[in-house]
């Protein structure tokens, strides 16, 4: 029964990690860039929900209604300006630029909002849970986040396979030059992909702010988890991301079961294990890395 509890909480946590990681996976899949500022973007989204949304007299539970569109727009703008400029140079530059951005964002938040932790107030919802039996409780919030995560992944999958824009995104991802020859404006497509990624990261940031508390330095560790999720699941596979998130969640809960200190370490070890055995990830294509 204890192990069932570990698995249930791992799966719930995994939903959150998958939500966090799908933006990272999408940006890598389409633009071949690793956004090292991904975690910090989520923190900025959380801070926006804490500091901006109350000005609209909205309850903070509904903050995503405001923050997600803002981030979708921001994603397009950042892609078309900063990220596109670095892609035009090379992948090497995108790493340096996003890492620089990450450090700048973190320290700006620190200077403006101090190192104090912030959290998104969702009232009594935080404490409500569904009692499965006398040892297993499923909090409504975790369950909602898991459902949102599955819905987002399904919607992304549908969007990529069924719509014209989605097909263009896949075309650009497969072969940019051929897509250009067929009349696709790849910069615009990159912008759209990035705006989707930013929208999901905003959701993840808000979920994170509701779960626990946000600090300027929360971004780094979240990027780490998102990255682990993507690599475990397999690069470029959205459903792999969900599985990767769940496996990471279970591994961390498993570690935490022995000692609270081992939570993150267990996840890291799972990642290193996957790298050693199956570097392309569980659902990744065979011909990836070397």
């Amino acid at each position, binding site marked *: 029964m204890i192990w069932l509890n570990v698995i249930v909480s791992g799966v719930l946590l995994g939903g959150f990690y998958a939500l966090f990681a799908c933006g990272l996976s999408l940006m*890598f899949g389409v633009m*071949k*860039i*690793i956004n*090292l500022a991904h975690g910090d973007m989520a923190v900025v989204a959380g801070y926006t929900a804490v500091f901006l949304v109350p000005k609209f007299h909205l309850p903070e539970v509904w903050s995503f209604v405001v923050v997600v569109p803002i981030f979708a727009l921001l994603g397009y703008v950042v892609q078309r300006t*900063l990220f596109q*400029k*670095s892609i035009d*140079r*090379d*992948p*090497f*530059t*995108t*790493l*340096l*630029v996003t*890492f*620089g*951005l990450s*450090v*700048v964002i973190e*320290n*700006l938040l*620190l*200077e403006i909002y101090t190192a104090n932790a912030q959290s998104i107030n969702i009232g009594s919802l935080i404490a409500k849970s569904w009692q499965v039996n006398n040892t297993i409780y499923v909090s409504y919030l975790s369950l909602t986040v898991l459902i949102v995560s599955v819905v987002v992944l399904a919607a992304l999958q549908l969007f990529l396979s069924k719509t014209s824009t989605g097909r263009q995104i896949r075309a650009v991802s497969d072969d940019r030059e051929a897509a250009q020859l067929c009349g696709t404006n790849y910069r615009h497509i990159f912008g759209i992909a990035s705006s989707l990624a930013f929208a999901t990261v905003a959701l993840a940031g808000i979920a994170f702010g509701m779960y626990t508390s946000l600090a300027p330095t929360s971004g*780094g560790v979240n*990027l*780490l988890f998102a*990255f*682990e999720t993507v*690599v475990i699941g397999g*690069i*470029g596979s959205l459903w792999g991301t969900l599985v990767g998130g769940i496996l990471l969640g279970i591994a961390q809960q498993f570690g935490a079961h022995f*000692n609270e*200190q*081992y939570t*993150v*370490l267990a996840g*890291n*070890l799972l*990642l*290193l294990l996957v*790298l*050693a055995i199956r*570097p392309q990830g569980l659902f*990744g*294509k065979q*011909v*990836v*890395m*070397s």
Partner: protein
Amino acid sequence: MSVEDLTPVDQSITVKRNQIPVAYTVGGAVALAAFLTWAPWILPASDVTILMNFFILVIMATMWNLLAGYAGMVSIGQQGFIGLGAYATLYFAIKGMDPFVAIPLAVAVCAVIAFPVTFLLFRLRGGYFAVATWVVADSAMLIIGSIAFFGGGTGHYLPGLTNLSFKVLNHDTYLAAWFVALVVVVATYILLRSRLGLVLSSVRDNEVASRSSGAKVTSTRRTVFIVAAAGCGAAGAVLAISQPFIQLGNEFNLQWAAEMLFASMIGGLGTIEGPILGCVIFFVLQQSLQNYGAWYLIIFGALAVGVAIWQPRGIWGFVRDTLHFELLPVGYRVSGPAVTGETRSATGPRQRLRRSRKTSGLTDESP
């Protein structure tokens, strides 16, 4: 390889490495080295501390430049080796060794740890390699933090220094930082002028061609990674002595990665002089903005982003390309009528860097 090997058949063309006579460069370097060794006796203690921290950053930036600027491996996990170096020093000091004597041992520990790590990390490229280095650093931190011997999360005082007065300790630590920095810079310079440097430049031009010509690319990269780990371990050991209270979050701080990356970026990747210049800029910024919290890091980071986008060769690269001037040349220069009288860098880092930025064989991330 000597210059004679490269002398072309057409005698009207000259191939040489140094523009300024070697005697001048060496003379200048010796004079500077003498001054810096003498510095703690003539400068106030606060300046000595600043210079010491400067040299620690020079070690880190030089190592990061070797990794990223020459071997194309972007690591954001070098703080892992800084931490391991610091904690190795702590281990030997607790066991009763003089911390200064422990520095080379800490270096060896980092090199030994880095070797197996490469087998995991080298399965990944580009961005995934970068974040994986961070995962390794994070894991190292978590493992060290769970060992009660090292004081866990609270930290541990570095023993073996209490019998030294503040002044003597400050001098000795400064000298350690300065000598390690000197060794690291000189060793990097020698390494890049050796066969290994040649392999690195061929890989940066075209990895496939380089491999098919028999260059041992992976083992060269492995050597570079281990050297960089050892160098960062040395920086960590000196850092530990300079603090000398050793704390997990301080030694394994991601900020080290940020500082070494920004300093080498701004100064100029792929040059020996660039990272040192970047460190000078960093310390000038930090000292002039020290009353404004983290703003120095924000400005430094923004500057690095700007440099990466608009001036990817950095400040020193800009100087070298506009003035055709190098202090510590790694490549050769070809001049003569055949190259329209213009002095050009033949295998200099400039061309290598520019070409690799176009083809980017090293950072190819596409599946």
